């Protein structure tokens, strides 16, 4: 499954709503929001691992999408286009948060290493979502985009502005960390 295939849009309906929204129809844009908000929110939540941040990113992504609607030419589906915007917003947010984190906690990236050992942690609490949330920020973002959203390493490298090798390393590291904790 690719990221663009995951949206299951009804092409004509989406195109109609987008055209109306491009003409300034906020009701049409609200329909688009209702169709896509939960997917955008899920992705933002997994990347940021923080509910308030994910809510803000979702809102910001839709506001930016509204402002850039005139530039949407329909080369990809609206969902795919919107996801790209949301990813950029979430990654930007992550960078800001990490900058703040460094100021108050220089070893913020090593958060996972400071977690209690799996044996000490009740398994019931360690569901997959929570495990992903404990990954280091950069590895988590890349892992979410690759393993859950279905983006290729090349796409992620372009989106995050990093080398393909770095993306692969992040995914590999994330998998190792998750497997180690998931098996126990």
């Amino acid at each position, binding site marked *: 499954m690719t990221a663009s295939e995951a949206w299951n849009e009804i092409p004509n309906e989406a195109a109609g709503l987008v055209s109306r929204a491009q003409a300034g129809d*906020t009701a049409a844009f609200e329909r688009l*929001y*209702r169709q896509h908000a*939960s997917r955008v929110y899920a992705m933002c939540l997994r990347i940021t691992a923080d509910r308030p941040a994910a809510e803000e990113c979702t*809102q910001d992504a839709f506001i930016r999408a509204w*402002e850039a609607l*005139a530039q949407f030419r329909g080369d990809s589906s609206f969902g795919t286009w919107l996801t790209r915007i949301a990813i950029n917003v979430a990654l930007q947010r992550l960078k800001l948060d990490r900058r703040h984190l460094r100021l108050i906690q220089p070893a913020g990236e090593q958060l996972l290493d400071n977690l209690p050992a799996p044996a000490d942690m009740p398994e019931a609490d360690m569901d*997959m*979502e929570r495990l992903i949330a404990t990954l280091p920020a950069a590895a988590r973002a890349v892992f979410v985009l690759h393993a859950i959203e279905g983006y290729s390493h090349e796409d992620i490298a372009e989106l995050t502005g990093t080398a393909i090798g770095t993306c692969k390393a992040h995914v590999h590291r994330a998998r190792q960390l998750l*497997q180690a904790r998931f098996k126990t």
Partner: protein
Amino acid sequence: MNGKPDDTLDTALTKLPKSIEPEHDLWPVIAANINRRREQARHGWNYAAAAAAVMVATAVIAWTMFGLHAPTPVNSNFASTVPPSSPAPVSAPDIRAQFVAGIAADPGLPAASRAAFVNNLHFLHAEILRTQAAVEKYPNDVNLRLLLLDLYQQESQLMGEAQRAQIQTTVRTTL
């Protein structure tokens, strides 16, 4: 993803929901932001139009005060649009047309300068009309609004330069 389809990790990953409903409706904040930005853009456009109209009006008033009345048309099509005794201008387009006609018919300005001012003012005006039409068609396109604002500024600037040239020639003649 790692080449092991039976991997429990992969199985768990595939079970993750693609969608998660936010705990509360996020639309009201989005709608409020969109409306606020629309208002700002609309006001911005209105301010730009008002600013342009004020600048054009100022230019015409100064032009009138310095006594730069259009004399007999000199080799120009635009001069014919100037009324024999100019009444008070009522709208920006009228003001603009009178201003351009005045420049076109000003004998104090060199012919090449007159042609350059008139041609550029006409070109800018045509671009403004075209961009205005595009803004009406795509009211949410911020870039179009910025382009329109830029064109207004260019037009005002050019009018200011034309006016300055007229004043300089008038002062030279008076002295």
